[in-house]
């Protein structure tokens, strides 16, 4: 015989008031008939019958407060059910007692909260071995990025590039130079100025199996689109239980350019590195720009690829091999040393490299690490280095609070505490919006001198 239970109005409701019965014992009910009204301090609800039959017993009188969720409130005798059951139901005290027991049982039976399993560690492959005597070609970061896209687009017709001024104008910063000419307007698409819209559109296209590269004119304008990047792209695989992924690359210049003030000069490294489900890549050298952009385009996980306008024109040597793809998630030790570890990425590497040159000249054996990828972050390489040097200085253009340096400081403090000979020290952009005035802008950015001062502090030199 069906028992009507006190329903829950919300996931957090534990008990409520049975305010009114709309049927009485002996009434016949069918599915959808309203049996009773219940209420809590937040809401009211009608309790509908899902059975047909006769109301044989009302177990809780109307007006009763504090009726526990799942407590039987009435019994309905189904059509064709024997009359054996009613007598049981008539012994009113029993069912009233029962739910109390049930409730207690539920409480007792609730197991102690199981500990979350440990997060799996990300294992990145090593950089590929290059053939002996491979030719190295000098090119700008701009050319490296351009080549990476062109090579990948030749390989896979599902890859397309979309963004403001990427096609006819050849890219606001000329990263897409020549791509329209080679791949045509179907695959190199100029968009209106509608970042939120085209980012979402591209994520949708990725759901359908295409492999979009979305260029943001700068990452500052991606703030218009950040919801689609995080809520739609980054979380999709998890929300779909592994079914639907968004193989997409969001790329463009990040960080301060020159004299373009607060709304156009911001480093989003820490922002995006915060998000599970997203890979975040921030290369410094031309070779890394090429190898990592190719890897990003091949990745089935969405990638935020953070370039830097000031680095676009800087040159470096790029190996001339058929397919230069670097592992995402692997830091590069730019210089080995044993006295102090400097960790940086992207534009920060420029300050860090120049500081390292001066410090080495002054007799300090600096180990310089270029993170290259910010998520998954290669903390292993950093920890191993700090275990050797006992000192960590991080360099980034972004703000200090919740920054990449803050993360690294937390990591080495917990993983290499006993090895530290000095507090981990951060060199960051100042904690202010970017000013326009030339003198203030210079002060707001990190400097080579600040890196040297931080290294001197952690090595107790003056």
């Amino acid at each position, binding site marked *: 015989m069906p028992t009507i239970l006190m329903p829950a109005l919300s996931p957090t409701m534990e008990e409520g008031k049975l305010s009114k019965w709309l049927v009485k014992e002996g009434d016949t009910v069918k599915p959808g008939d309203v049996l009773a009204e219940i209420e809590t301090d937040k809401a009211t609800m009608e309790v509908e019958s899902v059975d047909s039959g006769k109301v044989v017993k009302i177990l809780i009188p109307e007006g009763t407060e504090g009726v526990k969720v799942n407590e039987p409130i009435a019994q309905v005798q189904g059509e064709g059910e024997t009359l054996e059951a009613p007598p049981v139901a008539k012994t009113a005290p029993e069912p009233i007692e029962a739910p109390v027991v049930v409730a207690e049982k539920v409480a007792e039976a609730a197991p102690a909260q199981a500990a979350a399993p440990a997060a799996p560690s990300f294992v990145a492959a090593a950089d590929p071995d290059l053939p002996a005597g491979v030719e190295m070609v000098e090119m700008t970061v701009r050319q490296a990025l351009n080549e990476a896209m062109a090579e990948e687009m030749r390989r896979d017709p599902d890859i397309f590039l979309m963004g403001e*001024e990427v096609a006819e104008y050849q890219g606001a910063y000329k990263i897409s130079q020549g791509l329209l000419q080679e791949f045509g307007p179907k695959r190199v698409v100029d968009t*209106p100025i*509608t970042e*939120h819209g085209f980012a979402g559109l591209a994520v949708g296209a990725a759901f359908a199996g295409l492999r979009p590269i979305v260029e943001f004119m700068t990452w500052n304008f991606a703030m218009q689109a950040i919801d689609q990047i995080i809520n739609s792209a980054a979380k999709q695989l998890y929300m779909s239980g592994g079914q639907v992924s968004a193989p997409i690359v969001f790329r463009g210049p990040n960080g301060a350019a020159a004299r373009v*003030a607060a709304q156009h000069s911001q480093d989003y490294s820490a922002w995006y590195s915060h998000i599970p489900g997203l890979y975040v890549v921030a290369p410094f050298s031309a070779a890394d720009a090429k190898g990592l952009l190719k890897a990003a385009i091949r990745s089935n996980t969405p990638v935020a690829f953070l370039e830097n306008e000031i680095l676009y024109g800087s040159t470096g040597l790029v190996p001339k091999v058929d397919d230069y793809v670097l592992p995402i998630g692997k830091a590069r030790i730019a210089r080995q040393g044993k006295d102090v570890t400097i960790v940086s990425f992207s534009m920060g590497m420029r300050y860090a490299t120049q500081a390292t040159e001066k410090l080495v000249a002054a007799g300090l054996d600096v180990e310089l690490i270029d993170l290259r990828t910010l998520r998954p972050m290669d903390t292993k390489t950093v920890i191993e280095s700090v275990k050797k040097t006992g000192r960590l200085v991080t360099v980034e253009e972004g703000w200090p609070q919740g920054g990449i340096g803050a993360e690294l400081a937390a990591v080495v403090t917990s993983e290499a505490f006993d090895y530290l000979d000095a507090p981990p020290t951060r060199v960051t952009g100042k904690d202010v919006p970017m000013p326009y*005035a030339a003198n*203030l802008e210079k002060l707001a950015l990190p400097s080579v001198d600040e890196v040297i001062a931080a290294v001197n502090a952690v090595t107790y030199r003056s």
Partner: protein
Amino acid sequence: MARKAVAKTAQSNVPELTKEQELTAYREMLLIRRFEEKAGQMYGMGLIGGFCHLYIGQEAVVTGVTMASNKGKDAQITGYRDHGHMLVMGLDPKGVMAELTGRQGGLSKGKGGSMHMFSNEHRFYGGNGIVGAQVSLGTGLAFASKYRDDGTVSISYFGDGAANQGQVYESFNMAKLWNLPAVYIVENNRYGMGTSVERASGQPNFSKRGISFGIEGEQVDGMDIRMVYDAAKRAIDHARSGKGPYILEMLTYRYRGHSMSDPAKYRTKDEVSTMRAEHDPIEQVKSRILEKRYGTEDSLKEIETEIRAIVTEAADFATSDPEPAASELWTDIYAPA
């Protein structure tokens, strides 16, 4: 199609401006023109950094709209192509130019630069670098006007490119829903950076963009200040009288590149020179002034001389004024309690 209104304004019933209005228009537009030319030159000399978006060619829009507004009471807001707006609203040219050079006497103490200048006193709210953001902000200014019931309206300027941002339509909806005194001025200068309207817009007639929200709109010859003034009066009256938002699409043209560096491959030299030769907003006013004898070649030269003096003074100030003190790095981040 969308261009018709620019074609020779030989219309018979063109609204006329009074002598005073013509002379004011001439002076205001000439100030913008000369100021912007100077700014362009100073940029070339390295005195101005970053981006610098000149308003040359579009002078009639902000001048005509502001003349039709209750200047200093009605709120105005625009994007980064903002120098002209500030000059017309009566902000000190010295302060504007010194902001461009990043000096302490700049309107934002040198912290904002070309794209970020504001004045509470003149009710100018920037000076916004994020394309489209000013439309929601301007709608908020209109919300405040209605909330306070103070009889003011809010005027938001945005480009043909900006007109495709989603928040523009979210704003239109709220403006109509709540009947806000919001006047939207689309400065359609045919290009958003290097992308022509036709390559960016499904509906290139921006005056129609409010239709589905129930917002009236008009397409206006934005090179003819008489048309601008007349339409702006209508739109502002509409908003001020409690009838809600209004859209004016100003068909205008920028003579210079988008910012200072611009490959200029997206349009022909001929297109630019034709606009200059046939539709220049200042030349139009000038020839009417002479024709109607509101002034003489000599009296107009006098105005020109005065304007040049103002611009020279602004440039001198902006080059001699010191940079902000280093301590300014840490000021103005949090509002005083």
